[in-house]
């Protein structure tokens, strides 16, 4: 109780651990986990692109026809968009001060990320199976 009596926070608030933002550490944690996942995924992607430097359409199509490439590329794109949304959200929260503008921008970035990630995955599938 000596510990609890020093804190202005109620015991239930400490147990819930949601802090003043009422959402806890989920944003922070998701940003770290996506960062961790993007180390191997990003390195694989950059290494692949470097090895494909100067490749023609046929070589790219062949690269995209491998199930491993498809899976790794889809994972990279989804994880990268997730990570980008989390990061851009923090930048917006820091520099955009009007509440309406802030909320609008954050929503727009989330919609755009879902849209572009979907476009990328459809393009992947078309290039792999119909190209």
């Amino acid at each position, binding site marked *: 109780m000596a510990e609890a009596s020093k804190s202005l926070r109620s015991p239930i608030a400490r147990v819930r651990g949601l802090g003043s933002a009422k959402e806890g550490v989920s944003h922070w944690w998701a940003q770290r986990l996506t960062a961790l996942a993007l180390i191997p995924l990003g390195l694989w992607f950059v290494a692949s692109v470097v090895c494909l430097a100067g490749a023609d359409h046929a070589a*790219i199509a062949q690269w995209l026809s491998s199930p491993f490439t498809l899976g790794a590329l889809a994972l990279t794109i989804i994880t990268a968009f997730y990570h980008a949304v989390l990061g851009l959200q923090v930048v917006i929260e820091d520099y955009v001060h009007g509440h309406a503008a802030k909320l609008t921008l954050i929503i727009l970035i989330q919609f755009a990320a879902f849209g572009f990630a979907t476009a990328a995955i459809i393009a992947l599938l078309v290039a792999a199976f119909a190209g």
Partner: protein
Amino acid sequence: MAGHPRPLSPHLQIYRRQLTSVTSILHRLTGIGLAVGLLYLVCWLVAAASGLESFDRLQSFNGSIIGRLLLLGWSVAFFYHMLNGLRHLAWDAGWGFELPAAYKTGTAVFIGTAVLTLLAWVIGYYQMGAF
């Protein structure tokens, strides 16, 4: 509150730059740049899925001076953001927070970025038969 001037946050124009603040700002800037690069990756995949003609148009843009400069910028941004991100993950785990360590790792990030970028481009040009 006259007589009690509150401390002001440092203004950009009179703020003495330090390695630690520069690495932090660059982490944000490269993050924003990489988010734009992610959109370019989506364009590249959509072009690859849309057939030979649109793919060749994008590849010839990639080969142009502006295209190469963009790709160079994105590769620098990628390696910087990844290496400095590792630094952030180490800090989150409680390592390297002391000022001498933070300066050492910050310098290492710059050197590592230069080395990895150079390596990627040398391999890329080697793939294209430049030497």
